[in-house]
């Protein structure tokens, strides 16, 4: 069985495995379609077996909820569950747009996410360029180990560290910042959010740039040095161009999360004082949906979020394709 299944592969792949994906749709008019399907499965049943668990999990836990998106256009009916009851069209979207909280939630979401997005883009690049300048492998390894470390700390711990450090009067940072609570200050909370975000993930996010820098051909440095380039020029003319493609792709991808402020951290940072500046889409859908059981309304807000993100991603990708020929699809 084993020999047959493999050694047959190179023999006749051209005719029989060209369009196996049409299995389900059955559009192919060839008379021996069933025979070809049977042949495909005889040859590749092991690969189907290996991928089956993942396929089943993705179908159940990604595609079934996707089917449940229609709930955003339907009145929730406990008897019907995921597919919802009566069709109400854009009723819940209008409810959200006309809600007194709409403006505040949108501004908060965009403000926090844009700050974080821009800073989390810039700092890892700078850090990678710096680490790349270290000659000693030992020092380099040490700096990397240290800067990656916070990435593994949980959000709950990070936020409680923020609370303790920023306590006015006694915290190691708070005692320098006056008597007013920083965590309770709506004006300061965005900075607290992005600075702690950079602190935690800057090192980890620099790995990808370091990998790109490690791939630079050393003869480029030699050539630049013969042309009289100093250390700064080497960074500017060799290192930065080397990481540009990676940076471009990461920037496009991050555009797909313009309206995503991760739920956990901002939720944990919320308190009654800073709430006017920290209520974002993800925390609002949680409160509306899970705590208040307004299932359809919450789904509609979530869908609105997904659509806006997707539009941003497509737009960023299109712009980038035009100006730099860097694109993700």
């Amino acid at each position, binding site marked *: 069985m084993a020999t047959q299944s493999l050694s047959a592969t190179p023999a006749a792949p051209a005719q029989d495995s060209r*369009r196996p994906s049409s299995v389900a749709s059955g559009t192919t008019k060839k008379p021996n379609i069933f025979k070809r399907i049977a042949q495909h499965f005889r040859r590749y049943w092991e690969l189907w077996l290996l991928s089956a668990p993942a396929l089943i999990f993705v179908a159940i836990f990604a595609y079934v909820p996707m089917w*449940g998106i229609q709930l955003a256009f339907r009145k929730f009916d406990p008897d019907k569950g995921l597919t919802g009851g009566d069709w109400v069209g854009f009723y819940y979207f209008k409810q959200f747009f006309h809600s007194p909280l709409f403006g505040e939630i949108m501004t908060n979401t965009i403000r926090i996410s844009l700050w974080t997005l821009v800073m989390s883009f810039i700092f890892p690049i700078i850090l990678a360029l710096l680490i790349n300048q270290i000659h000693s492998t030992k020092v380099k390894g040490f700096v990397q180990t240290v800067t990656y470390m916070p990435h593994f700390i949980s959000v709950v711990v990070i936020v409680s560290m923020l*609370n303790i450090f920023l306590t006015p009067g006694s915290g190691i940072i708070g005692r320098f910042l006056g008597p007013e609570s920083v965590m309770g200050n709506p004006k300061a909370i965005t900075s607290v959010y992005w600075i702690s975000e950079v602190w935690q993930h800057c090192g980890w996010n620099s790995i990808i740039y370091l990998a790109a820098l490690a791939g630079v051909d050393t003869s480029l440095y030699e050539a630049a040095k013969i042309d009289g380039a100093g250390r700064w020029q080497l960074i500017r003319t060799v290192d930065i161009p080397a990481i540009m493609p990676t940076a471009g792709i990461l920037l496009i991808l991050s555009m797909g999360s313009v309206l995503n402020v991760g739920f956990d951290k901002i939720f*944990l940072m919320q308190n009654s004082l800073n709430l006017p500046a920290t209520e974002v889409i993800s925390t609002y859908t949680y409160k509306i949906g899970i705590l208040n059981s307004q299932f359809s309304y919450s789904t509609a807000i979530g869908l609105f979020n997904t659509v806006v993100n997707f539009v941003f991603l497509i737009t960023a990708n299109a712009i980038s394709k035009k100006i730099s020929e860097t694109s993700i699809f």
Partner: protein
Amino acid sequence: MSTTTVTPAPKTSGDEIPWNKHQRQHLTPGDWVASIIIYGLITLAVIAVLYPLWFVVIASFSNPNKVAAGDVFLLPKGVTFVGYAKVFANARIWRGYLNTIIYSVVGTAVNLAVTIPCAFALSRKEFKPRRVILFLFTVTMFIAGGLIPNYLLYKQLGLLNSMWVFILPGAVSVYNVIVARSFFETSIPEELFEAAQLDGESYLGYFFRIVIPLSSAILAVIGLYYFVGHWNDFMTGLIFITDDEKQPLQVVLQQLLLVAQGTATNVDAAAQQQAADQIKFGIIIVSTLPLMVIYPFLQKYFNKGVMLGAVKG
């Protein structure tokens, strides 16, 4: 800056690594300034990351009054283990700890058992349906049902308030499938497959006897990604678990560290607050230590893992 740093014997030293120590004597003043700035910034970054962590460590051993007064700076003062004694005496923490260990170990095992075989199947170029499958997988990275459809689905499947809600819904991370697939495509030589074919190996035999033993690097990286995800998962417990006995460590931490946080209004309360802070430092150490201990051993694999993620097809 016009002074050149040409190497003395350009013909033979073509492979020289730039800025290695043997070239120090050729550095220009401008390069010295650059070195000072670069190392200054790196030192600053290391301190900025390390000091808060170091402070948590020393504060957890120190007399809470001294911590609050700002006396504890570089080394612990008034060493005491009262905070740790209280942490170790807290049954809820241990319950949460045990839960998290179970969820993380079982969860990671399921993750790997599902992700790795699928990634291997999708790495075989002669397996034509892989393009459609990859497309369907990638779509889920950008379009998701959202919180409420998930909630209703889990309810229907009986996952609410069950340990399986930590394990089954997140069993496959599409990102990790793509990373592992890139690894199989780029790091396992195709000749091995041809040799296996000649030996009469089936796909299963090839996968288990040849591919898996060569893939410890990718198993380590992806295993760590999943494990860290489980260990630090807070949202699942918060939203889908109502039974306190089943809550993972992170939710217990949230209740102890954040919800229970009182605001000090008088002297007594302030003293209590300080004592409470010390327990918090202890909790932070105890809950974070396992990951801090594991990860440096796996660090050498990270670059490879992240790089493979970037090669996404």
